[in-house]
């Protein structure tokens, strides 16, 4: 078995990507701390916001920059883990990490705000995300995307944005943009999004042949490696018998693929489970803290119902 370190430092740790993220992080600090007073209605950065944002950035780097990314090009199951973490963990973290007042300003930008408001409408966002996610995993599409660097970048970023839109209505607590107020609606939203990505996962899990060219040994696989391995390294490696994923793992390709589907589904279920738990908890707190008000409501309702009795 060959270790993946043969691809060299750049492929493993994506230094340029790392630098980009560092710059973004500095920008974040600058806006939220240094230049904050230049914005009206700004509020001081809270600790939890900082933590969420840093964690989000870190996860983005881990999934798209670190060796995980490279593995994700070799193993389909790793790719699915990467997707799950990027789309279902990093995305909500970033939303929560950016202070509300910034979001308010973003949504106030004339055209952009309107578009965002449409894209983050619950019905739209859940459909767009599921559609993009499912389409992405159609064998023909995935194979095409993985053979072109720009296409891959564009699609990854769009998918990520659609994930942000998916999470928005759940996390938002203000009226300037779409939000789901009631716990029940949130639950329905989560369940329907879980359902909508199931067909894609199920197909991946239950199809009985390897369907992704770019995850099988051969030309396509090697070409797709170009996405994260510098061309020079790759050409230097040619002739070392680099033929396909089997060089790095003993797992049969079909199992890798099925495991990918299963990993995606399980991770997604765990994440959604945690979110459901949180929704339940906040519902519980709401009921506990507003018990008197709820009682008044019940008394009124009782009166209404006995009016005609």
């Amino acid at each position, binding site marked *: 078995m060959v270790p993946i370190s043969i691809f060299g430092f750049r492929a493993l740790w994506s230094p340029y990507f790392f630098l980009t993220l560092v710059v973004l992080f500095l920008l974040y600090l600058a806006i939220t701390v240094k230049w904050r007073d230049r914005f009206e209605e700004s509020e001081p950065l809270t600790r939890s916001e900082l933590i969420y944002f840093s964690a989000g950035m870190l996860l983005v780097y881990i999934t798209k920059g670190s060796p995980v990314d490279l593995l994700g090009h070799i193993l389909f199951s790793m790719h699915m883990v990467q997707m799950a973490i990027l789309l279902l963990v990093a995305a909500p973290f970033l939303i929560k990490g950016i202070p509300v007042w910034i979001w308010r300003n973003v949504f106030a930008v004339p055209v952009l705000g309107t578009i965002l408001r449409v894209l983050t409408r619950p019905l739209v966002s859940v459909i767009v995300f599921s559609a993009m996610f499912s389409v992405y995993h159609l064998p023909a599409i995935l194979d095409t995307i993985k053979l072109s660097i720009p296409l891959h970048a564009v699609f990854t970023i769009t998918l990520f944005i659609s994930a942000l839109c998916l999470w928005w209505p759940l996390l938002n607590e203000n009226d300037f943009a779409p939000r789901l107020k*009631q716990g*029940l*609606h949130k*639950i*329905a939203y989560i*369940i*329907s999004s879980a*359902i909508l990505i*199931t*067909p894609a996962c*199920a197909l991946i899990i*239950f199809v009985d042949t390897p369907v992704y060219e770019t995850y099988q040994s051969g030309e396509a696989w090697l070409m797709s490696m170009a996405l994260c391995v510098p061309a020079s390294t790759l050409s230097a490696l040619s002739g070392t018998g680099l033929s396909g994923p089997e060089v790095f793992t003993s797992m049969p390709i079909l199992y890798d693929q099925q495991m990918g589907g299963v990993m995606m589904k399980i991770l997604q279920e765990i994440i959604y489970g945690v979110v459901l738990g949180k929704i339940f908890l906040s519902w519980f707190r709401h009921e506990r803290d507003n018990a008197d008000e709820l009682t008044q409501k019940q008394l009124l309702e009782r009166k209404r119902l*006995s*009016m*005609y*009795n």
Partner: protein
Amino acid sequence: MAHDIEIIEKTPAEYAYKKRRSDRLMRSQLMMFALMIFMTLISFAAVQAGFSAYFVIPVVLLLAAVQVGLQLYYFMHMSEKGHGLVAFFMYGGILIAFLTVLTFVTIIWW
């Protein structure tokens, strides 16, 4: 006595408001009906036109799902107040329905 019925008359203004609202609602429902008919037509047409099954099946399924959503939310008023738990149970039912169908088309052989 509790079973003396109180009758509350609406003022003319209130009544007019109620009328207006229900007429507006009715108009939107009529539009939804038109939409539903339209979608049905598309479904049948897509099949008749003989496109590839890989295209037709997702499309007709999607249209069916949307149509059902319209029925539930517009004709059956599932979005109105007091339908929270109702919606919850409908979604629960749909989830289980979905799982059942999913297994029957995957892990029962053939």
